[in-house]
């Protein structure tokens, strides 16, 4: 836990990619340098005020050698609404990098399946996997509609890897859940599959179930309410498999082996 920092970060860019999908580019060298895919930051959006009080957790979408760190986010409420109004030059305050990252093992083939903003940590993961010449990742992305999908998919497509698409309204790709695409993707038995998933809870549960039935290794990145992000408040509890007490998503996760979780 020594490699955690609290840093003031300057907003370099504040982009709107779709009606309610935005991307924030921050200058934050210490955190950017140490961050690994699957880790997150706790962002204090308006450091000059006490509302919103509690930091907001965001997966790291990408880092650059120049010390930049990007967040891909959806505007869902007060905090993200204020975030969307940030201008270049504004200052925010970050704590990170936090949590366990995705366990990266290059022997299996990787299937990355994301719903909505769940794509964010998977993009960071994809870029890391591609550093290894043997990696053959497959990506499956789901979104509500074409507009949201177009805010997410292009960067994956630019990586030159297979990307399967689904939308809830059928405006692009498969009309239905992205999980529907998963079974057909986990084919070929030369290399075992390792599934990484991030997205809404019902989607993760479906992914976990399918992987369990097919005996595929599966890691999911989960969300719970977080106050501290560093294991101190015990607020981010998640029932452990077998209902044997609780996991703490900020410290034991957010990336967890699917079998560790008591799915409801």
């Amino acid at each position, binding site marked *: *836990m*020594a*490699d*955690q*920092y*609290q840093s003031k970060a300057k907003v370099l860019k504040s982009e709107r990619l779709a009606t309610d999908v935005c991307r924030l580019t921050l200058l934050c060298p210490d955190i950017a340098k140490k961050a690994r895919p699957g880790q997150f930051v706790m962002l*204090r959006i308006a450091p000059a005020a*006490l*509302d*919103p*009080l*509690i*930091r907001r957790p965001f997966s790291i979408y990408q880092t650059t050698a120049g010390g930049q760190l990007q967040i891909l986010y959806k505007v869902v409420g007060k905090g993200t609404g204020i975030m969307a109004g940030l201008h270049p030059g504004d200052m925010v*305050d970050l*704590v990170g990098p936090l949590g366990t990252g995705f366990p990266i093992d290059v022997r299996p083939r990787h299937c990355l399946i994301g719903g909505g903003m769940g794509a964010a940590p998977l993009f960071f993961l994809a870029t890391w996997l591609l550093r290894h010449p043997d990696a053959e990742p497959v990506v499956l992305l789901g979104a509500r509609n074409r507009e949201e999908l177009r805010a997410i998919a292009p960067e994956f497509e630019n990586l030159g890897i297979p990307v399967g698409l689904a939308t809830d309204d059928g405006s692009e790709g498969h009309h239905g859940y992205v999980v529907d695409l998963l079974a057909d993707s986990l084919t070929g038995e030369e290399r075992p599959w390792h599934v990484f998933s991030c997205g809404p809870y019902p989607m993760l549960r479906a992914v976990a179930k399918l992987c369990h039935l097919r005996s595929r290794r599966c890691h999911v990145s989960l969300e*719970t*309410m*977080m*106050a*501290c992000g*560093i*294991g*101190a*408040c*015990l*607020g*981010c*509890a*998640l*029932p452990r498999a077998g209902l044997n*007490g*609780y996991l703490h998503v900020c410290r034991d996760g957010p990336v967890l082996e699917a079998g560790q979780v008591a799915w409801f």
Partner: protein
Amino acid sequence: MMNSPDLKVNIGGLILKNPVLTASGTFGYGEEFAPFVNLHRLGAVVVKGISLAPRAGNPPPRIVETACGMLNAIGLENVGVDRFLAEKLPYLRGLGATVIVNILGETLDEYRELARRLGEEGDIAAIELNISCPNVKKGGVAFGSDPKMARAVTEAVCRHARQPVIMKLSPNVTDIRVIARAAEEGGAAAVSLINTLLGMAIDAETRRPKLANLVGGLSGPAIKPVALRMVWQVASAVKIPVIGIGGIVTAVDAIEFLLAGATAIEVGTANFVNPKATEEILAGIRSYLERHKMQSARELIGALAPDA
């Protein structure tokens, strides 16, 4: 050149290097904050409430943000006294941190036994008695709002503990001075206040409570005015030192509590908002004293000017 101001304060015989402590439950077992704060520089680290047996805590959701505050219903999850002594205390000891252990029980016997166990550890500086946590149905609430029971717990713990005992008070009472006096009569070396205010949050869309436990404890800047008023009331009602808690985020907040009569303060929710809060508050108190040419933090205690 002036000497650097003296920050030492005396909590019922226990001399602390400075008046900045952490509030139980908001600083884990200390270790979690090591990347951000030099633990040995704090007046004391007050750890998460410890019970005799480990506790798993409440089902989630356990926390929710409110206006300038948060509600928590952690349910007193903790590793239990055995694992605390074996796994958590040595780390703090190794860093040279001053450690205060917050304890909770559901019966007088449990409190007694906890006091006895912790009393054996020479390097625990004090025991803080939580009889006010509103989250657990059994015990908690009753001890904290009934002066007779509050006095009985204090007496029981004081008899078995070797360290000074700090009684932590609940704000969910008509007159907090009555409970403070009961603690004083029971032998407490100090009182600390306030614990959280009992609150609730509802999700209008799902029409469900936002906490699985229905109700939780309100903390953070939202409660500061209530905390400050209670500290001011209690400081003039008892002779033992008062430790001020509630919504402290900045050095200015901390100084307000000292002026209201607190001998020391505990920083709670602010640790989540700003992990470096405690050290920044400490630095801020030091520079306030220098700017006002005061020799000692003790000059601030209860130094509220009589009239507006």
